């Protein structure tokens, strides 16, 4: 019974946070910003940091060159961070375009590539595009509409999955739609704390003021978001600025990516622990950061609870089968329909998740949620604890993580 109470608390907190975001979303005042005329558009530098990005680099650069943005106001700097494959040669083929600059440097990590460009740029804004992502042609114009005030230090896009093929990629496709809602709702309460690698843009003066990018446990985009928040800057989200990103196709690569993210979050959370529960940082300190940490442990707990229950049920079925063979457990009757509180609450959470996926889809310009949504709803909760558990253990041991 005591374990049931812990499960109830975990479910309550999870549902509370989703309801909180939903209310904030409904309550938010959205403005349809009119695109700026070309003459008023600011100068922008886009950095493409790459390390052995042979498969996707050409596609990424091509999509940047196709951006609908005044040519004299757009610079694209490709930083080959010590690749050992043909990344440099492929990128060099694009230097015919006057907007493109190619730099080759000794491998030092993504943050060093970004800082190298930051220290030299004369643009007003600096953005990043990971070499596994591509942008839609109107994405940059949408992004710029987010910089409404001087204290807006960063604008994040709507990230969608590029051509999902494997089951895991289809599951991630739904997950990213859900993330679109979360980012938008978090922005509504001033609590975005990540400036994702695919096509987030930052105000150069703000980034310089806070000291540029850091290694930050291999999650420099998360640390930068937290640092900007710490300094009182705002981070805005424009989901219609759509970026397509290539997601891991196999469980092994997905776990590796997510362990890095979760590990980075936990270690950064430790570094920025003074923000937790601190009203100075508004909703971010009071609810978002604490819930983000609690949700990691809740997800592990709830999945363990469900797997334990399924394991027990399976054991009973096997014992029964070994003696009775194929045999209906009891006469079919409404009497045996499961109406436990936990099941009903799980159904409520499921309904809430579907609602948020629908909203996320609409926000990013999709009419309907992905067809794989049912698969996501069934499997996602069991996959996530895999990397969460590994990340928690590694974060506790401070093992460090690598990009690849």
């Amino acid at each position, binding site marked *: 019974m005591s374990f049931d109470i812990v499960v109830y608390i975990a479910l309550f907190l999870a549902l509370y946070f989703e309801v909180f975001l939903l209310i904030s979303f409904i309550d938010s005042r959205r403005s349809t910003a009119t695109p700026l005329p070309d003459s008023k558009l600011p100068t922008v530098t886009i950095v493409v940091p790459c390390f052995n990005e042979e498969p996707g680099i050409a596609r990424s650069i091509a999509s940047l060159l196709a951006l609908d943005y005044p040519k004299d106001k757009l610079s694209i700097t490709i930083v080959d961070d010590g690749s050992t494959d043909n990344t440099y040669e492929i990128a060099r083929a694009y230097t015919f375009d006057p907007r493109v600059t190619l730099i080759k440097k000794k491998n030092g990590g993504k943050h060093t590539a970004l800082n190298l460009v930051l220290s030299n740029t004369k643009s007003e804004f600096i953005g990043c595009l990971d070499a596994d992502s591509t942008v839609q042609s109107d994405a940059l114009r949408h992004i710029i509409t987010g910089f409404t005030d001087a204290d807006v230090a960063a604008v994040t896009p709507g990230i969608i999955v590029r051509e999902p093929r494997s089951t895991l990629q289809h599951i991630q496709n739904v997950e990213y739609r859900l993330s679109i809602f979360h980012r938008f709702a978090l922005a509504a309460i001033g609590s975005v704390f990540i400036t994702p690698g695919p096509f987030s843009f930052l105000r150069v003066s703000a980034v310089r003021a806070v000291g540029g990018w850091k290694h930050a446990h291999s999650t420099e985009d998360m640390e930068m978001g937290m640092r900007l928040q710490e300094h009182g800057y705002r981070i805005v989200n424009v989901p219609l600025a759509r970026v397509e990103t290539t997601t891991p196709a196999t469980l092994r690569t997905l776990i590796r990516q997510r362990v890095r993210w979760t590990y980075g979050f936990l270690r950064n959370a430790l570094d920025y622990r003074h923000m937790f529960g601190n009203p100075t940082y508004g909703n971010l300190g009071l609810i978002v950061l604490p819930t983000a940490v609690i949700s990691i442990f809740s997800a592990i707990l709830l999945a363990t609870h469900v797997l334990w229950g399924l394991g027990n049920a399976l054991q009973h079925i096997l014992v029964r089968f070994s003696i009775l063979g194929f045999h209906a457990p009891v006469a079919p009757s409404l*009497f045996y329909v499961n109406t436990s509180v936990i099941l009903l609450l799980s159904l409520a959470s499921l309904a809430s998740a579907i609602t948020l996926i629908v909203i996320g889809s609409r926000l990013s310009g999709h009419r309907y949620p992905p067809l794989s949504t049912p698969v996501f709803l069934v499997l996602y909760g069991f996959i996530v604890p895999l990397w969460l558990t590994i990340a928690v253990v590694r974060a506790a041991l401070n093992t460090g993580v690598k990009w690849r």
Partner: protein
Amino acid sequence: MAMIFMRTPKTTTYLTAFAITALVFATAFYISNYFNSKRVVNVRTTQDQIAIDILSLETQFDLLAEHSCKDIAENSVLSRELQPLGERLSYLENNRGANDEELLRLKRYYSLLEIKDILLIQKVAAKCKLKPVVILYFYSNTGDCKDCERQGYVLTALAEKYPTLRVYSFDYNLDLSALKTLTAIHDLDGELPALVIQGTPYYGFKSIEDMEKIAPALKKLPSSTSTKEKQ
């Protein structure tokens, strides 16, 4: 579309979210309790019906010495209703916990009905010169009987194989004086699972074959396969 955002916490948002979440939880608890109460009512109604049937049959039996044996022998509906009732109680036990007071009351009532049915069968058998095969099964669900689950399934299979077999299950730890008397009559020593087959106690797990060896009378009962063949 851009966002004009609120960094400062709005107390109303926090409170509204809490109220809505609490409402969802309260609704889930209410719905779950509602259906659980319905189940308890369902079990209680069935038990009351069985009690009336037993009492009615007993009364008839006492009043009319010449009561037709055929009528009584054919009135096997009691045992047939007791079996699914036991399954329903077992389901409630899994969902509500073994220490639920309401459930314990229902189990006591159920055990009493079983004992009444055993006594009635004994009377009927004596009067009508029948030789019913009766198995009493004593189990525990407090985790001290690792073979009880398997033994329960074996008895289910046996009861299906021999539809006229009368199997009565009792929670050995149930606080019921009539049950204590029943265990004392059969000199049960507390080892579980315990089976009383044709009046003799046996301890430990027994397979269908074991029980058929112990009680050869079982094989003389009409089996479900032979019944099907006749049909």
